[in-house]
């Protein structure tokens, strides 16, 4: 495919319906961040309610319209907010936003391809995502409000508008939006998989791929195998809601009436949901882990430690992620034997996770670390992955889960691994690959400020939640004030909410830096981080086809940093050796053992 320059006249196909992976990655990024910002505002709103229960706030009055009264939000709308917050953050920001951006940007560039296998499908993948985002936002404005049964939308609560108003039109739109979202995700994932397998340049064997590509590949495989199950769960829910079936419903008395559904079980939904739901969290996390491997290695001027073990551990995580879903369901009433099986598999997943952490630490050891904001966020990911990961050992053990299931302990755990680790990976990726996205550099000082405020305040938000959970405080509670035993914890809520507000404001620093730098930032050099992988061999300016002339041939793995000869001098005179540099006479490729 040769480079074409004739798109300058066609605004619609250059910027709107582009089939160029670089443009599509930016579309995913911006849409993802916009949705993420909305999710962030939602969390700020409900943190206002939790920190100062029942108090009146002008901003609540301003933003929440009929969902509030005198500046105090309605209890069922509190549930709508937490539901939409979860849905938007998990799917729209951390799945589409994270994978969509970086898989699209980096796969062709790092494997040495002109573009994705199908630019057309890629374009569709973005536009389906866009449409699903719009529909999801529209659901906030319908009668009865948006879906309100938690992001996990268990029926019967999500099936019956009589049970909560948001389960009316809002829930219908949620299901439509998610169905379209799933289509977007599947098309994208198929594209990524096919491209990685088929379009690698000469010399780019699978074991010379950067770990980002391995992460994106495994993520795409997870998506292809698990999202369809969510689609089927959603479809059956549509049938129960609109066509009188009873897949999930049986023996219900509500609003003074016995309903006509019989024979179904909500637990069926839970199985189908979590069959996606668990791989989903690894779909969220794996790209972040891949990005961190890349950045820590490059910025420490050292090879990533244990390249093959890193691949192996990602594969183990991916495989195991399919057989642990029941740990979300220990107390659903399913057969306790299943609980035992899932405890076993869940605690197993800790092993490859631990391997990855130790490998990151060993990569840093005796490195020569340059601290850009990307480096800081990658270090932050390792920190939060440890913090959030260890509490998984409590939750994954069924006997211990009895007292912490659905409490704030769980909220602390998953926010630290997703709301912190995964988003840190995304931020790190944006800071690090900004030169490839926009041809300009972000401001480091603002980036450092963004990092420090974010990590300190985020720990301030989520660490205390473990104590709340251990005190028995349930999640999704509008206020703690109805239980004397939770009296003392309202002040902890205030503590958390204050940090949450500051953390939210810190993101404004990032948005300012992002927009300013994209428009007026200093122009980037071709390889600002002195890195080895192929994306840094493409010219700064964007054009279809990525390389003028031939695509480079690859001769070595991407981790030859600080490789020295027997005298201790850098081979080839620099502390990095791009993949395009042929191997020397007696030189062995670092990826070969």
């Amino acid at each position, binding site marked *: 495919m040769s480079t074409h320059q004739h798109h300058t006249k066609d605004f619609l196909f250059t910027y709107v319906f582009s089939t160029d992976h670089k443009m599509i990655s930016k579309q995913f990024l911006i849409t993802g961040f916009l949705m993420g910002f909305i999710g962030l505002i939602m969390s700020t709103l409900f943190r206002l309610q939790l920190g100062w229960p029942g108090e009146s706030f002008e901003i609540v009055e301003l933003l929440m319209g009929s969902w509030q009264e005198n500046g105090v939000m309605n209890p069922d709308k509190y549930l709508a907010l937490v539901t939409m917050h979860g849905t938007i953050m998990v799917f729209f920001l951390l799945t589409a936003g994270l994978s969509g951006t970086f898989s699209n940007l980096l796969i062709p560039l790092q494997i040495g391809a002109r573009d994705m296998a199908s630019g057309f499908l890629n374009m569709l993948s973005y536009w389906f995502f866009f449409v699903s985002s719009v529909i999801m936002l529209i659901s906030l404005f319908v009668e009865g409000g948006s879906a309100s049964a938690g992001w996990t939308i268990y029926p019967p609560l999500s099936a019956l508008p009589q049970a909560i108003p948001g389960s009316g039109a809002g829930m219908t739109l949620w299901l439509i939006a998610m169905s379209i979202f799933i289509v977007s995700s599947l098309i994208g994932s198929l594209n990524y998989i096919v491209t990685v397998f088929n379009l690698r340049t000469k010399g780019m064997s699978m074991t010379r791929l950067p770990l980002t590509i391995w992460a994106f590949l495994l993520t795409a495989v997870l998506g292809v195998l698990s999202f369809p199950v969510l689609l089927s769960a959603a479809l059956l829910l549509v049938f129960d809601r609109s066509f009188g079936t009873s897949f999930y419903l049986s023996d219900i008395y509500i609003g003074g009436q016995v309903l006509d559904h019989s024979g179904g079980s909500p637990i069926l939904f839970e199985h189908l949901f979590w069959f996606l739901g668990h791989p989903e969290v690894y779909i969220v996390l794996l790209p972040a882990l891949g990005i961190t491997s890349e950045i820590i290695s490059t910025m420490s001027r050292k090879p990533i430690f244990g390249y093959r073990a890193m691949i192996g551990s990602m594969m183990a995580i991916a495989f195991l992620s399919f057989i642990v879903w029941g740990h979300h369901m220990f107390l659903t009433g399913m057969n306790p034997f299943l609980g035992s099986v899932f405890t076993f598999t869940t605690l197993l997943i800790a092993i490859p996770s631990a391997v990855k952490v130790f490998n990151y*630490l060993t990569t840093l050891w005796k490195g020569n670390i340059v601290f850009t904001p990307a480096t800081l966020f990658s270090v932050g990911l390792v920190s939060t992955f440890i913090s959030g990961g260890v509490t998984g050992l409590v939750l994954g053990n069924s006997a211990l889960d009895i007292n912490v299931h659905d409490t704030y302990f769980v909220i602390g755990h998953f926010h630290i691994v997703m709301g912190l680790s995964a988003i840190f990976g995304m931020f790190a990726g944006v800071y690090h690959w900004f030169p490839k996205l926009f041809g300009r550099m972000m401001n480091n000082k603002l980036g450092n400020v963004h990092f420090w405020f974010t990590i*300190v305040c985020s720990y301030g938000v989520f660490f205390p939640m473990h104590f709340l959970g251990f005190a028995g405080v349930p999640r999704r509670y509008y206020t703690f004030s109805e239980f004397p035993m939770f009296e003392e914890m309202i002040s902890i809520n205030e503590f958390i909410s204050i940090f949450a507000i500051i953390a939210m404001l810190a993101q404004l620093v990032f948005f300012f830096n992002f927009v300013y730098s994209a428009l007026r930032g200093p122009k980037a050099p071709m390889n600002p981080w002195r890195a080895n992988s192929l994306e840094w061999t493409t010219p700064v300016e964007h054009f279809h086809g990525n390389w003028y002339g031939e695509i480079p041939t690859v001769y070595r793995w991407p981790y030859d940093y600080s490789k020295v000869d027997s005298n201790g001098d850098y081979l080839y005179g620099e502390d990095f050796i791009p993949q395009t540099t042929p191997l020397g006479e007696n030189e062995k490729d670092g990826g070969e053992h």
Partner: protein
Amino acid sequence: MMTIVVIITAILIVIVGSQLLKIAELKAKSKGELIYEVSEKQGKSQAVILLIFMFGLIGFFFWQMYAWYGLRLPVSASAHGEAIDYLSDVTFLIITPVFLLTHVVLLWFCFKYAYSSKRKALFFSHSNKLETVWTVAPALVLTVLILMGLTSWNEIMTPVPSETEHVLIELTGQQFNWTARYAGDDKKLGRSHVSLIEGVNGTGVDLSDVDAKDDKLVKGEFHLPIGVPVQFVFRSLDVIHSAYLPHFRAQMNCVPGITTQFNFTPTITTEEMRIKVGNDEFNYVLLCNKICGAAHYNMQMDVIVESQEDYDKWLAEQKTLVE
């Protein structure tokens, strides 16, 4: 009015910020530097901040323990709760040092190995020995946790054998309250179905069923005798709820369409626990712990644990459905 002020302030901040950034870029250029290059000095100051953060994070952890560890639930009020609390302590005794040590290593390395033009990084790409060590060590630890956990889990989830003396209670959740149904002397719960709900018969007990004759429906609070296993059968009338009794280390979803079960033996009476926690208004409580609608945050029922005699007296005062 306030809104306009906020918007104008935001615009001004953006304009000022942009100008400041432009100035910073030009200043760097005038010194012959590139603004986006991290100088050795800048890198080292981030390294110092990372080290401070290490102390800060660890300090924050200990401060939280000091401030909030005392807020955790009191000692388990059920027999099986002891094993759970023990396993919990063991788990935390493992993960806390891991959390602390790995953070010290992480952040100390960041500080120690911050970029210096005088050093070279070490090209150290793999070690099968190290990988084996940190694969096997976690595996061993996890094996212990799994074995302990599953032993407890199996015991806890086994229903009370029917020959054993026990109290049989059906707890029915609905938006937004609980109903307890005591099985009475026949130790059997009468059949029930939502289609039979009417008036006082709030959970649809089949009054024609002989086993239902001595069933007693109780609302607001329910009582348990000390030291006697209680076998719960859970139901829901509308959406999924969850019966959470944190003091007893007990929780089980209430699912419309099926019944679920959980059992425990109370080991501390309400009176005794009031003394233990130093609060004579303390009560055990049953909370809903699965999102169930608007008033999910206030779906509760008190639980009183008392001596066998007090319990018998209380139960005798409760009316059967037939009455």
